[in-house]
């Protein structure tokens, strides 16, 4: 997973297929922040406070759709997500290791 990190961005975009970027600093709601993709420096305005290391949507995601980071599926949305929103356990869930779903099905 080789990657080059450009200087001067607020968030990190790992792969051209990704829906999210990762905050490289504490970001406040309403800030317009930058990240770099193949086309150059991009901007998105945040809808929530974003802690360091947390994810920000850079594309809209429908509820139930896969969410990608590193170019791979990291889970699925449990609510509609718009660009600029904090993406975390409140709006995406894991697909794997879900013993709780099996337990519900057998009830």
């Amino acid at each position: 997973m080789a990657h080059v990190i450009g200087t001067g961005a607020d968030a990190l975009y790992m792969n051209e297929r990704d829906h999210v970027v990762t905050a490289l600093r504490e970001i406040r709601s309403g800030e317009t922040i930058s990240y770099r993709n193949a086309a150059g420096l991009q901007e998105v305005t945040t809808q929530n406070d974003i802690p360091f290391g947390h994810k920000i949507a850079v594309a809209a995601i429908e509820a139930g759709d896969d969410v990608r980071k590193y170019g791979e599926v990291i889970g699925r949305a449990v609510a509609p997500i718009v660009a600029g929103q904090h993406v975390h356990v409140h709006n995406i869930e894991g697909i794997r290791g879900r013993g709780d779903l099996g337990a519900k099905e057998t009830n």
Partner: protein
Amino acid sequence: MERTIMGYERPNGEIGIRNHLLIIPTVICSNQVCSRIMQMVPGAVAIPHQHGCSQIGADKDRTFEMLAGTGKNPNVGAVLIISLGCEVVDPIALAADIRQTGKPVEVFDIQSVGGSVKAISYGTEVAKRLMADLEKQEKVPVPLNKLKVAVKCGGSDATSGLASNPALGVAADALIGEGGSIVIGETTEIIGAEHLLAERCVTQEISDKLYYIVDRFEKEVERMGADMRGGNPSPGNIAGGLSTIEEKSLGCISKCGTAPIKGVIEYAESIPDHGLYFMDSPGNDIECVSGMAAGGAHIVCFTTGRGTPTGAAVVPVIKITGNQMMFRRMEDNMDVDVSDMLDGSVSLGQAGERIWQEILDVAEGKWTKAEVLGHTEFSINRIGPSL
């Protein structure tokens, strides 16, 4: 010409980078005696644990293999085994197994010697004699291609997948390039990323085994009827920005570099020479690191974003982070900071070179922070009930 480092030559041809006297309790009942002897003999290390009795079948065998493997680890120069005298783990068989390496192994039991006080007294005499012999051994040039390094992550946050793990991967590739071995484990933490490792397995059989062990682990989670989120990723992982096990796994796997995977080995199984191997192990830090040490790893490279003090009984643990705030907070536990990757001031290759240099320094005797602080964690993964 073959590249060498200064290390210890073992009778069986392996190399050691430390020269420990290891004190092994075969059972929890011997822990206190072992710990007292360790206090009496500077430089000795004991591995107190919770097991060794009321165990059967594969679970009993796993405890035996862990104790034997730790004794056989090439960083161990001599072994003292202390039994209670009535437990499930057979101390004589354990001694015989470790003696196959050619290193000195002494064994006795507390019941025959006549209680704790006499066992501590007798054991201290034996340990001092073994230690005196170890201190006479000198380092010699040994081949770097016999070095085995384990890669592990724990207390991960988002920086682990973005910085420290990919940088460690560069160092892993450097060791493979020198002909050494890398082992990666944590079966739980490749869930969602196993397809990327499976396509790097050198045969279909190895790829199938990798899928099989992941499936087996996932079925165990299903049997518990729980969402693994909350257990893994842990509350700290989640606070650090990791939302799902898939996200954590995808960030984890880069730490083993890019080499083909030459085999999938069991927990605590001996790590083969030359190449990259996967060890079926839990993600739990201490159980995983202990299993890798029992497999013969010389060094563990451990990335962390949240920060952890962990060390290991017989192997140096190099702590690497991509989280600058944590590095500043917990500098007495951290060995390498690669957080400058995240502002672009150093490249991935430069960060990887920094870790590779640290591996070489530690291999030649530089103490890790965990060694300086006396961290000697040890833990055995259980797979059966206590009877």
